[in-house]
């Protein structure tokens, strides 16, 4: 079963917030994550977006992630992506997003990069 809201958020050590996206981030899913991502971008400085549980990602979902990342980075924060499954990774690479938002294989790597030392 997919979660009703396809995003969960958790603050972890080092001031890092992990936003985990879930299931299908299609047109409907993107609208559901827009507001939470916007709130996240307005309130957090070190954000890791965990994509490991995403089954489908369309351009609307990428747009929501890129808008949040732009906002966070413009306030001298950091935003990265973690562990997109194969098909989702192909979409991210095809859109050129891996070149502009750091993309890590594991949560540990992303957290270390966001909060060095």
């Amino acid at each position, binding site marked *: 079963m997919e979660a009703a809201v396809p995003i969960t958020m958790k603050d972890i050590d080092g001031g890092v917030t992990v936003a985990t996206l879930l299931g299908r981030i299609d047109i409907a899913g993107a609208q559901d994550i827009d507001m939470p991502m916007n709130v996240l971008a307005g309130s957090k400085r070190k954000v890791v977006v965990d994509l490991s549980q995403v089954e489908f990602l369309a351009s609307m979902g990428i747009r929501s992630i890129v808008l949040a990342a732009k906002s966070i980075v413009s306030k001298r924060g950091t935003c990265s992506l973690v562990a997109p499954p194969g*098909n989702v990774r*192909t*979409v991210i690479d095809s859109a050129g997003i891996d070149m502009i938002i750091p993309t890590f294989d594991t949560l540990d790597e992303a957290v270390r990069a966001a909060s060095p030392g």
Partner: protein
Amino acid sequence: MAEPASPVRARLTLRSGREDLAAIHPWFESIGERIALPASALFQIQLVLEEAASNAALHGFDAGGVGEIALEVTANPTQVIAVLSDQGRPFDPLTEAPPSPPPRSLDEAAIGGLGIKLMRKFASALRYRRIGPTNELTMIFDLAASSKVLNAGQSLERGAKS
């Protein structure tokens, strides 16, 4: 003696709202099952169909207005042809968003045009024509070509579960 399977033909009519667009996914999934479509091709074709339908819904009709979008698919194990048609405003996605280089920084990353970029990437061919009051977008997926994309995608997959 194995007989060549006859192509699967199916038609879906949608209203241009987000609930209806979500119907594309289960509809095409059942077509994919009937032609034993590999998971990655299923993913990529669904992506293109959803991007095409959401473009048509966003650009073809007045804000808040709802129009009808039809999707017709002919599928066999080597090729999938999908035709999207609607009676919205003339909208040619191929000229609206010409191919562009990838963004070099987050600052210059454009927020629009991403859907069409993905459509160009994953469809083998895209053709648009306006016939009278109808927008018609034909999307062709050569499944041999799509499995190449699959392999490229999988070689990038590191540590991802699947």
